């Protein structure tokens, strides 16, 4: 009985049974990755079919064999051994024989991979991890506060040039987008507000709605979210890259605390620019709203009068105060994520992502706390 499989690129497998009942696999031609791929299934099936009968591989006509071919020969040998029959490799050229010997599976028992940890173990580990994260957060906050206090006591210790440069990048650089987003936000809010109000002929109050929500809530919130996206991520990436490049280590061994050196200027810069950005967002939002207001047929002066009437000074001050706190949170979280960066380029990506996500979460939580606090205080 003879069956033959041939591969287009010149390797042939012939399966025969000798007179004595031995299974014979004849291999011929070039055993490279592509030809071996075509022969593999048939060759292995034939090898397994041999069972406990002797299996002989005639490889005298193999004129080339690379790692894939060697792997095939090693796999056939292993299959034969599992079947319990004798295995013999005949006629393979000496140089190719050496290659096959290199690939042959080692006879040593390969240790099984360790079993995955149980639920309890994983729960414990994640508990420990959370505890460590919390510890880091607390100690980072403490260090940052101490560094800030020492800068306030000795203003000369502040890296003024860095702080100004960062404020410029995070503040002036963000102005166009903040103004654009604020304008659209005002426009949309006014439109959406006008639709239900029209039913009650109350479009005139669109100005009240807009003034209060922009100045008190949306301006600071939008500015802070944009700061997270633009600068929180940038802080994490900058500091993370410095960590990967051992620059943080270099600072430490120079005796310069990274927190004072890198975190304080960023936090101060963010704290200073977010109120300005929030104001810009609010004002451009009001401008967008004004456009809609005028298209509803009211004069500009009505718009201004209604807002001045409606909005209390504390609404504005509270908004700015919130903006300042958001700035501190966003910058602090961005820097913390940067300092926590592990090794390699992927780690920088991870900390950037997590800076944005935790920044936004921090803003949402703080905003909620502010809302509750303002409510309790009755302002």
């Amino acid at each position, binding site marked *: 009985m003879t069956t033959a499989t041939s591969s287009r690129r010149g390797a042939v497998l012939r399966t025969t049974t000798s007179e004595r009942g031995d299974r014979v696999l004849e291999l011929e031609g070039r055993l490279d990755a592509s030809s071996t791929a075509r022969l593999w299934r048939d060759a292995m099936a034939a090898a397994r079919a041999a069972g406990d009968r002797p299996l002989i591989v005639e490889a005298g006509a193999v004129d080339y064999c690379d790692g894939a071919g060697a792997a095939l020969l090693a796999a056939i040998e292993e299959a034969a051994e599992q079947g319990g029959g004798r295995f013999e490799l005949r006629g393979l050229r000496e140089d190719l024989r050496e290659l096959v010997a290199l690939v042959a599976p080692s006879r040593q028992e390969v240790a099984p991979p360790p079993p995955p940890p149980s639920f309890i173990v994983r729960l414990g580990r994640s508990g420990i991890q959370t505890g460590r994260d919390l510890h880091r957060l607390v100690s980072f906050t403490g260090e940052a506060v101490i560094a800030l206090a020492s800068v306030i006591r000795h203003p000369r210790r502040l890296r003024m040039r860095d702080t100004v440069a960062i404020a410029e990048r995070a503040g002036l650089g963000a102005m166009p987008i903040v103004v654009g987003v604020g304008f659209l936000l005002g426009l949309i809010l006014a439109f959406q507000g006008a639709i239900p109000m029209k039913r009650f002929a109350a479009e005139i109050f669109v100005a009240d709605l807009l003034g209060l929500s922009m100045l008190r809530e949306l301006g600071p919130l939008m500015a802070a979210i944009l700061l997270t996206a633009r600068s929180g991520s940038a802080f994490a990436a900058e500091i993370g890259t*410095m960590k990967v*490049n*051992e*620059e943080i*280590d*270099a600072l*430490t*061994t*120079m*005796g*310069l605390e990274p927190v004072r050196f890198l975190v304080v200027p960023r936090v101060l810069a963010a704290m200073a620019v977010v109120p300005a950005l929030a104001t810009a967002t609010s004002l451009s939002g009001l401008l967008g709203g004004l456009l809609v207001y005028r298209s509803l047929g009211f004069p500009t002066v009505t718009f201004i009068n209604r807002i001045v009437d409606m909005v209390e000074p504390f609404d504005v001050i509270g908004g700015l105060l919130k903006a300042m706190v958001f700035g501190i949170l966003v910058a602090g979280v961005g820097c913390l994520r940067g300092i926590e960066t592990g090794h390699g380029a992927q780690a920088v990506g991870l900390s950037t992502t997590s800076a944005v996500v935790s920044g936004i979460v921090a803003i949402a939580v703080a905003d909620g706390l502010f809302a509750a606090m303002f409510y309790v205080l009755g302002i």
Partner: protein
Amino acid sequence: MSKRIEQEPIIRVEDVVAGYGDVTIFENVSFEVLRGEVFVILGGSGCGKSTLLKNMIGLYRPFSGHVEIDGEDIVSAEGAARLRILRKIGVMYQQGALFGSMTLLENIELPMEEFTDLPREAMHRIASSKLKLVQLEGTEHRFPAEISGGMRKRAAMARAMALDPEILFLDEPSAGLDPITSAELDDTISRLARTLGITFVIVTHELASIYKIADRVIMLDKEKKGIVATGTPVELRDHCEIAWVRRFFRRETASGEVAA
């Protein structure tokens, strides 16, 4: 002028056990570095050479043991005491770790700005002279990204010397450099050790450098988790009782061939 090595130790490492997390990389490592010598820490990949260096400069805290620098323990030092020790050392990191947003001159001036009241003009002058020490005149206003890897390492060495430290720690100075650049760096190291009397602690596995610059070598081993040999390179090549250490210094592989 020949180099003067005093018999008084400037660094004393005592029974240091260190590693990461739960993993101990080496145990009970003790040795002394003498004032003025070029001391090389040697060993295969993963044996903890860089970890040992980072424990010596106070970047990591060992699990146990002491590292004394000029008589003061850096492991337990905090605040002003720690700063006093750090002022005595300079570190050159594997990739240089220059601050990318600053020019070379600003990089070198940074520690002076932070720790001295020197006027700006004096700082410029000193920083330029440090660059000259490592043969980098004319690159003052370049950024780290604009110069080659070898120049970056020399600039990092100049920065490490900004405050005239007594000890310079170098982490794999020849890693990633071509043989000629690496040899030039070795010349710079020898010259600084000879003329300024700086003590060098160098982590490397570049054999050519070791023969040229090292006064004394310790060899760490991953299996033994500690120091397996101490001596001059020639002593270790000819007389070390461990065969693989002798082979290492002769550049031989286990089968007796000499590696290129």
